[in-house]
């Protein structure tokens, strides 16, 4: 999900074509058409998730479930190892001759840390994958884009360096966009 914003020394502004669509079906349909016309780096911008967006954008398997599973396993292992080390190896406390290593009493904390690390991986994993926080993005330059979080449905296409903006804009318009704007990244 990287935005490919490696500019090196000289600033080369990225260019985007943004199209607004009238309704969800038009957006999904339009996204598919624009992608099939050979455009890369497509993204949609909607106030809520739409059913079928993944297919329209041609996205692969989501990565979050794997991350969460790994986080939860790591949490459980860390917790159990920590309890074992502290209460068995480093400082065993003999209470009424009960065994130093008692698996049932270790379960609650093992579970809690699995949830803690699994949940944290979902949260921090998402923001890392999404590249957020990122207060500035070229798509915000479009003056109609504020509607993306309110009721607007948008498709944005990043025009590759040396690519033809007008051709991409024509593709987006041809796919059913009701309004199309082109924006250029500003240097800051």
């Amino acid at each position, binding site marked *: *999900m990287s935005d490919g914003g490696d500019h090196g020394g000289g600033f080369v502004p990225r260019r985007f074509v943004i199209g607004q669509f009238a309704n*969800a079906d038009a957006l999904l349909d339009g996204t598919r058409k624009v992608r099939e016309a050979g455009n890369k780096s497509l*993204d*949609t*911008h*909607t*106030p*809520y*998730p*739409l*059913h079928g*967006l*993944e297919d*329209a*954008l041609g*996205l692969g398997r*989501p990565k*979050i*479930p794997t991350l*969460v599973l790994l986080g*939860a396993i790591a949490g459980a292992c860390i917790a159990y190892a*920590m309890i074992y080390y*502290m*209460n068995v190896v*480093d*400082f065993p*406390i003999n*209470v009424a001759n*009960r065994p130093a290593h008692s698996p049932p*009493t*270790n379960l*609650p*904390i093992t*579970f*809690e*840390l699995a*949830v*803690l690390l*699994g*949940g*944290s991986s*979902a*949260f921090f*994993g*998402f*923001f890392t994958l*999404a590249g957020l*926080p*990122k*207060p*500035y*993005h070229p*798509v*915000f330059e479009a003056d109609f*884009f*504020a509607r993306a*979080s*309110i*009721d607007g449905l*948008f498709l944005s296409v990043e025009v590759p360096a040396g690519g033809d903006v007008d051709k991409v804009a024509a593709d987006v318009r041809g796919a059913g966009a009701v309004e199309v704007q082109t924006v250029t990244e500003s240097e800051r």
Partner: protein
Amino acid sequence: MAAPHPVITSPDPLDPRPLIEGKQTDQTINDSLLEHVWRGAGKGWWALFGVALSALGLLVIAITYTLYKGIGSWGNNIPVGWAFGIINFVWWIGIGHAGTLISAILLLLQQKWRTSINRFAEAMTLFAVICALLFPLLHTGRPWFAAYWLMPYPSVQGIWPQFKSPLTWDVFAVSTYFTISLLFWFLGLVPDLAALRDSSKSRAKRFAYGIFALGWRGSGRHWAEYKWAYVLLAGLSTPLVLSVHTIVSFDFATSVIPGWHTTIFPPYFVAGAVFSGFAMVATWMIPAREFLGLKHVVTARHIEMMCKVMLATGMIVTYGYVMEHFIAWYSGDPYEFAQFFLVRQRGPMSGVYWLMIFCNCIVPQLFWTKRGRTNLAVVWMASILINVGMWCERFNIIVTSLHRDFLPSKWENYGPTWVDISLFIGTIGLFSTLFLLFLKFVPAVALTEVKELRHELEHAEHGAGEEKHA
């Protein structure tokens, strides 16, 4: 892998009343749900805020006094070694549980009505857990030392927590619960903060909400992962919420005090937690939907659903009481029998017992009838009584059990001091202050999810219409 959000295909045929009233578009939902954030604070808000802030002041005084004088200023003393501190801790944690139940469990069960009240209830969870956490910390007497008494911290003393103690489990359970609830709440809030940013009229507000919105741009690539992160956090929160009150109940159930030593505690604590939590949501939601203009998304159907949950969990709690008494009799243990049939019912604190029975077992019976569930004044009063009842339940379990244990020579009565009472009222003030600030600065209803629900409902209606035509 299929998307985690299923599309509903038709409205509930058994209950034709709508979840969203009137003809709404994304724009009207956006405007009506954000209206209460944009409009200036009214007289009512300031009046409530003043009261809440005064109570918060009382909390500051009581905490300062506790830290200065030590916990000897509290009323608990042997044999009643645990009293207000733990009662309030369990009570607040329980109130928090409704938030997680609504946001996580009802999400997994695909209960569409949760959408209008989840943000509200999740905020309640966070603030209730903050209030709850104060009590065990203060009960250590020196909270600044508590870090390495409670957490496994490599100190020069080379000593570690005793991991076989439910009190240590509690530390991990409650801190995990707070962290995960906060992450879940914030993750759900980010798209709404973006909507706030983009609806802002002034530059300053746009900037302030923009910082918290983290540059959210509704990207489809983000949504694809976001949906999974959200549903998995819900999936993790579900066993978490059950484990938290289970572990809290272990603090009692693993000991030998008559009235504590029982295996029914974990499920009965969890049901009681949900019971009191829903009551607290109703207590705040009934006035809030009126004053914040949320009646089109929090409809009579939502209130009725909450009443049904209160009735069901109230009946589970009642069953718990019955079983406690039955086992006390059936076990043949004279101490258990005396605790349940003599001390609680006829002892010096029997008033609290009978108040508990009235509030928790009798009051929810009002919700069997539709009239009881739809009369807002009745529901509101009942919700307050239920929280009184649940506080009494914890008082009964903790103080009543402790003040009459095995040795009559140890028996002693208990009374709270002004510090105990001020701490309790003070946390209500802290909770209310935080909640009023939340209602002022953040949309009380999960905007994005209501829009999504509206879209799904419209889609379902549209789809059904097309099928009829064909």
